[in-house]
């Protein structure tokens, strides 16, 4: 039993940890060739952190953040509603929320895409309502699709904290004279923050590197960090792996920074951070 842990650890080091080291090595090469080593320098990073790429990075950060907030904002009332239902109904509803997680992401986004194309149902409805703006190939469309695509990921982490809320606590609070706002401020929010942070991490990090949605919905007209990285590695015109590696590292740094800040924002003490971690682990 002493050595059975080794194969998995070697595998993960080889295919997850080591590639990072290699990306790091790749990103400090000045030339754009794959197999050449040296000369070294930070020119790739310099390029990534200057326009137009800096703008793309900032854009991706802002849009992902806004979309994450939207997703959580939509999900919280739903989860709150479900968590107050009687147990039987609760299971049914939360199952309804969880099933989309098992539906293939490509298919789901494609299905959504069909709806927001110029001749799609949603576009027609919007036109009927007097809103005449195309959704496909625009930033607004990509943003909406992000929210649509990532909504299912928010339910379960939020549900785990809302389910744990003890109704007698809010009852006690209102008994002591707290109104709805005060109940949320002092009782509910502190208790659910770990779940909110967990779902935020869950949504924000993959969104930041999202390639599929901007590519499919944006139709090549909306560029994001994800599409840029893809074109540096697989692009038909002029692939540049060292630059792609630098961009990926920027993405990773941004994701880690947000993750770090999110965890730091948690209520003081070990319990908040620990429970976020445990919620992340459960999913």
């Amino acid at each position, binding site marked *: 039993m*002493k050595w*059975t*842990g*080794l*194969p*998995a*650890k070697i*595998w*993960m080091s*080889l*295919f*997850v*940890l080591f*590639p*990072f080291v*290699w*990306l790091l090595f790749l990103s400090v090469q000045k030339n754009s060739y*794959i197999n050449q080593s040296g000369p070294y320098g930070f020119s790739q990073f310099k390029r990534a952190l200057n326009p137009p790429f800096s703008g793309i990075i900032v854009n991706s950060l802002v849009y992902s953040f806004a979309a994450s907030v939207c997703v959580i904002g939509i999900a919280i*009332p*739903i989860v*709150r*509603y*479900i968590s*107050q239902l009687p147990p039987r109904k609760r299971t049914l509803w939360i199952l*309804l*929320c969880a099933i*989309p997680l*098992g*539906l*293939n*992401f*490509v*298919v*789901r986004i*494609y*299905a959504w895409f*069909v*709806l927001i194309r110029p*001749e799609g149902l949603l576009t027609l409805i919007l036109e009927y309502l007097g809103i005449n703006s195309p959704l496909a190939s625009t930033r607004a469309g990509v943003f909406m699709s992000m929210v*649509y695509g990532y909504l299912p990921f928010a339910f379960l982490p939020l549900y785990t904290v809302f389910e744990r809320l003890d*109704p007698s606590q*809010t*009852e006690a609070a*209102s008994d002591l004279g707290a109104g*709805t706002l005060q*109940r949320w401020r002092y009782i509910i929010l502190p208790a659910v923050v770990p779940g909110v942070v967990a779902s935020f991490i869950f949504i924000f990090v*993959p969104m*930041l*590197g*999202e*390639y*599929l949605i901007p590519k*499919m919905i944006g139709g090549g007209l909306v560029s994001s960090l994800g599409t840029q990285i893809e074109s540096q*590695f*697989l692009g038909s015109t002029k692939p540049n792996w060292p630059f*792609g*590696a630098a961009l990926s590292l920027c*993405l*990773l740094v941004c994701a880690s920074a947000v993750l770090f800040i999110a965890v730091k924002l948690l209520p003081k003490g070990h319990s908040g951070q620990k429970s976020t971690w445990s919620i*992340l682990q459960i999913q």
Partner: protein
Amino acid sequence: MVNSSNPMRKKLLLGWTVLSLALLYTPVFMLVFYGFNAGQFALRWEGFSLRWYAAALSNEEMILALLNSLLIGLFSTVISVALAFTYCLWAQRTRFKRLAGTSDSLMSLPLFIPEIVLSIGLLVMIVRFLKPAFLEMGFNFDSLAAVIVGHATLAVGYASLVLRTRFNSYDIQQELAARDLGAGSRQIFLEIMLPQIMPGLAAAACLSFAVSLDDFYVSYFLSTGGSALKTLPLYIWSLQGRKAMTPEINVVSSVLLIVALLFFCTGLTLSRSRSSVENLKGPT
């Protein structure tokens, strides 16, 4: 409950919930529905027909993609479950609990880094090192092998999480009891441990398979944008870009939806099923 005492508020919340879930499901239902379209085009309804299902069955490209997906799923599942199982055996028993904690994070790392970064990491690793190394030995490490390795890496994280919780509810003291009653190592493994870990193994396998079926990024990057090899999601991706879309894409999507959902739900149910140990009333 204080908050639900207000019926107006409750109705608003219900409305919001129904609306959001409807918006979540409608596109998918419509997609499946249009797979039964009799017409030429994916987007205009012309009556019910199964012709596109028949067409998909005779479409070699689609069958190949399906076979690729199943093959990759199978191999990557075997690898990831084997790795996760051996890992959990170690992690549960090691005396070095802190080391186990660190390696737990290593195992779940794929769940926390953006898939695109994981994918290009794998791409770089395979193109730069694995491929040349295997060529040296006379093997062609092709896209199929690459995608299998990639999916296995992705799935190990999920598999070990699921198995770890199962192992946590498995009381090692039972093995002492069994040994005390005269059982040898083989008997303990086969009669005590395996029957109790089995649901966890099945859950891990189902989830790994679902992860593999679902994956887009790793397959996309390791098959250079789907040109070298097409899994089902990549095939749908390639159809979507074409000018004239027939309802065939809806058919393929429906098939993928059903198969992946099946594995996902089975895996989830198995992993959430309470192990019998947790119901024991004995002290901890």
